[in-house]
């Protein structure tokens, strides 16, 4: 009986083969694939570089700022960087199509640049990172973030101290 139901079902449903190289395929929404970096929301804490088990993520100093690089050819898609990222600027996409010819091996890189800026208070050259938000009480408002963003770390600390004294 079981065999007959299977037989009937297979007749109705047709082949189960995924048509992939010649047609569309299914990817789960939460599939952990290639990572994606958003430089605008990065705090520059470099926690991802520290927790990456395969050493795929590397921050390097650049004349224009701080460069972020993730080499897909050594990333193991563990998602540790995305888990530890305090701002969610590292995200795992469900993109798995990474097969490439060997000549492109060193081009399989996710690159991002946190640019340099000039502090509006003291005029020092600093990185244009997002202000640190975790553990700040009371939480930063959108105005606070807007004032903190163009400042250097020292002026940011001064601002936070004044803000604490006001409360």
């Amino acid at each position, binding site marked *: 009986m079981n065999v007959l139901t299977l037989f009937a079902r297979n007749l109705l449903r047709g082949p189960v083969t*995924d048509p992939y190289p010649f047609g569309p395929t299914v990817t789960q929404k939460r599939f952990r694939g290639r990572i994606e970096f958003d430089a605008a929301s990065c705090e520059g804490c470099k926690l991802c570089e520290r927790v990456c088990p395969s050493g795929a993520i590397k921050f390097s100093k650049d004349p224009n700022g701080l460069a972020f690089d993730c080499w897909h050819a050594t990333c*193991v898609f563990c998602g540790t960087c995305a888990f530890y990222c305090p701002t969610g600027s590292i995200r795992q996409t469900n993109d798995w199509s*990474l*097969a490439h*010819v060997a000549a492109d091996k060193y081009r399989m890189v996710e690159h991002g640049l946190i640019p340099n800026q000039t502090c509006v208070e003291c005029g020092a050259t600093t990185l244009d990172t997002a202000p640190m938000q975790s553990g700040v009480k009371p939480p930063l408002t959108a105005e606070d973030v807007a004032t903190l963003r163009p400042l250097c770390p020292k002026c940011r600390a001064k601002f936070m101290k004044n803000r604490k004294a006001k409360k």
Partner: protein
Amino acid sequence: MNILTNLKTIASRSPWLYRINAGSCNGCDVELATTALIPRWDVERLGCQYCGSPRHADIVLITGPLTRHVRDAALRLYEEIPDPKVTVAVGVCPISGGIFRESYATCAPIDQYFPVDVNIPGCPPRPQAILDGVAKAIAIWRERL
């Protein structure tokens, strides 16, 4: 004679796949088995088949970071495969070493020892990605014939 050469160019030949496990954790090997044995990802649709002997192989799939212990055996096996052959590195371990990078026990990346043609990164790569890579390898192999 003329007809024979014409036939050779018209008829598309089918490559045979051969798998070398160079110290892999078997994750990539399971995915390779999945692409071949499960009807859902049927690698034989691309006209290729797994074979048991290196002497019959056309496309070599290498998994694992090439451990020091298996290096000589893998190199010997690779020598037995007749030319023209296409080498495919499956998984991040043979490409760069992955989490075993810079370990004293592994000789990764394998392109120091084998002329790699196609890379399929992933830990392990998805069956569709392997199909992608095999399709690329077949295209390279057709050019080399």
